[in-house]
């Protein structure tokens, strides 16, 4: 029984990690005052870049690096377009999400001559921390995980402290809360927003790498399957505060892992696949009961 419990915890962590990285990217953007809904496309690009990078370099870490750098570059479109040129970040994000979906499928066909999925023999997945397997409790949870899983929590805590405790983090929050005041104090708003979005791209690249080389060792078309949107919802849920992100993301991870469990005992896959979205929406609604009373203007929020 205990083994079942621990393996379930492991499954929750596995499902939550890609969403954690992407949601951190979204939370940083939110703190800088950018509504970032490009996470889905960036994560998908990261997943493809990770597999392609691992295939060409012959090393999984090479894949992670390629994913990190190329997704950061991919995010430059959104970063420069919205922060410097003041274009609508929502429309750019809809475009880049479509672009990522099309481009990954296109390159899958052009580079590897396959369609649907790509898992060549000898594709290097990220190593699992098998050396932990003898340690009680932690062993069964982490032995099958990649280093990126615990690292996600480290990165989130570090980002949280950076936001709260460093001058640069404070300026970033100032940029998001009151751009005019930040400008008056000599903070370059566009520059902070641009770099936050680019760093967010790098984080989404890592999310994609964990998804394609950690959770599985394959790239399939549209393999993110809405996880980026769940990350966006997680950011809304915690109002952009990084320290709360693990709680939200582990909740979604639990929904996904529970779905797998239920599939194992015969529940139809369609319904368990839909569960995370339905649960996400219900939780969002529950946390915002009274929103209309607090905002008496009764208008739609300026999203």
């Amino acid at each position: 029984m205990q083994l079942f419990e621990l393996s379930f915890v492991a499954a929750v962590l596995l499902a939550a990690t890609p969403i954690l990285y992407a949601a951190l990217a979204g939370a940083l953007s939110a703190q800088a005052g950018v509504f970032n809904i490009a996470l889905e496309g960036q994560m998908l690009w990261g997943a493809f870049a990770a597999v392609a990078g691992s295939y060409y370099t012959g090393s999984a870490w090479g894949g992670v690096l390629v994913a990190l750098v190329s997704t950061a570059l991919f995010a430059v479109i959104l970063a420069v377009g919205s922060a410097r040129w003041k274009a609508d970040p929502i429309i750019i994000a809809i475009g880049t999400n479509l672009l990522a979906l099309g481009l990954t499928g296109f390159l899958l066909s052009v580079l590897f001559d396959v369609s649907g999925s790509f898992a060549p023999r000898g594709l290097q997945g990220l190593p699992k921390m098998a050396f932990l397997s003898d340690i009680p409790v932690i062993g069964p949870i982490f032995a099958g995980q990649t280093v990126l899983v615990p690292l996600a929590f480290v990165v989130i805590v570090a980002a949280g402290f950076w936001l709260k405790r460093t001058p640069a983090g404070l300026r970033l929050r100032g940029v998001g809360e009151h751009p005019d005041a930040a400008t008056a104090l000599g903070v370059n708003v566009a520059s902070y927003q641009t770099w936050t979005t680019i760093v967010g791209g790098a984080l989404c690249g890592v999310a994609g790498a964990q998804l394609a080389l950690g959770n599985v060792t394959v790239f399939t078309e549209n393999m993110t399957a809405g996880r980026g949107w769940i990350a966006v919802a997680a950011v809304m849920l915690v109002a952009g505060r990084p320290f709360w992100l693990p709680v939200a993301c582990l909740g979604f991870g639990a929904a996904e892992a529970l779905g797998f469990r239920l599939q194992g005992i015969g529940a139809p896959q369609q319904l368990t696949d839909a569960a995370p979205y339905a649960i996400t929406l219900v939780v969002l609604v529950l946390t915002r009961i009274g929103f209309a009373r607090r905002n008496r203007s009764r208008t739609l929020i300026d999203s």
Partner: protein
Amino acid sequence: MSTTTPPDAQATPPEAPAGATRAARPATRILNTALRHPAVVPIGAVVLALLIGAAIMLAAGLDPIVAYTAVVSGALEPGTLDYTFSVWGFICGMALAAAIPLRMGEFNLGGNGQLVLGGLTAALIAGYAPLPGPIVIPLAVIGAAVVSGAFGALSAPLATRFGIPIIISTLLLSPVAVAIVSYLVRFQIGEAGSAVAQTPRLPEGARMWALGDFSYSNVGLLIIIAMMIVFWVVDSRSAVGYELRVVGANRRFGAYGGVRVGRLALGAMAAAGAAAGVVGAIIVMSSPYRLIDGALISPGYTFAGVAAALLAGGRPLLVPVTAILFTVLQVGGAAMERSADVPRQLSDVLQGVVIVVLALRVVLDQRRSERSSA
């Protein structure tokens, strides 16, 4: 677009007001006026996107000329026009589902869910209602509109009461609806003994009326064209249409001026969902007269519609025009894959590039205002 003028023409002092361009040469003036035409931005975006697509193909070692020729000929050959027109209708319908909320500045990205719910409703009504054809066919279309409209309208109170942006709630609701419909087709209402998850064929009397002897385009196409006309009339000739555009231009001003934004959003999202639902109903009631698991979503009508609506800026008269472009891309994409060996995903790439380029047009506007205020 440099508008350098010879020194003798620069008679205007640097601090002249914006209207000072009148002193510039007539040719420049005509050019400037032409550049302000509303059609310039979408056409420019498309041309630039096609060039970027060509660059991507060249980088991948493919021939863009051959590919684009294959796209256009594949979509516009006399033999395929019937099919192309039917797809144009579906994309127009999905463009309506995106364009109506876009008029008030909201994004409906949940078209897939609304589409399959409409298909499901039509399959159930047309498949099982023991009524004569002339009654059951309109009933199935209206039923689909009502069910999908209600589903789309859910997003409005979620935004007004709970502050969840419409773009997020539509996106989270959509996969739930898609999964439920997929489950029902697979396990509950599917045809027994069939290898594919699909509902039984609709009875002869419950199929969408044919249009002459076309095999793909049917009366459903006329229904969608009628919906577009209604959208145009409401948008340009009614108080509701005016309110939609006012709120889209400035939400606070609209609310201040007495527009009930919540009610307007409810109506817009219901209309959007209904449009998508009608498309789903027509697809199911056209050949092969079944609801097939995944068949409504896989052609990508939803995001082709979103792209068409964005490119048209939600303007009712431009939507059918921009839909032509994405129809040609969708239908021609398959031909391009067959004859030019270019992956059909290039259609999605071009859709994405068009939207990104369109969003970045503000750079052009800034340059323009800098120039005219300089």
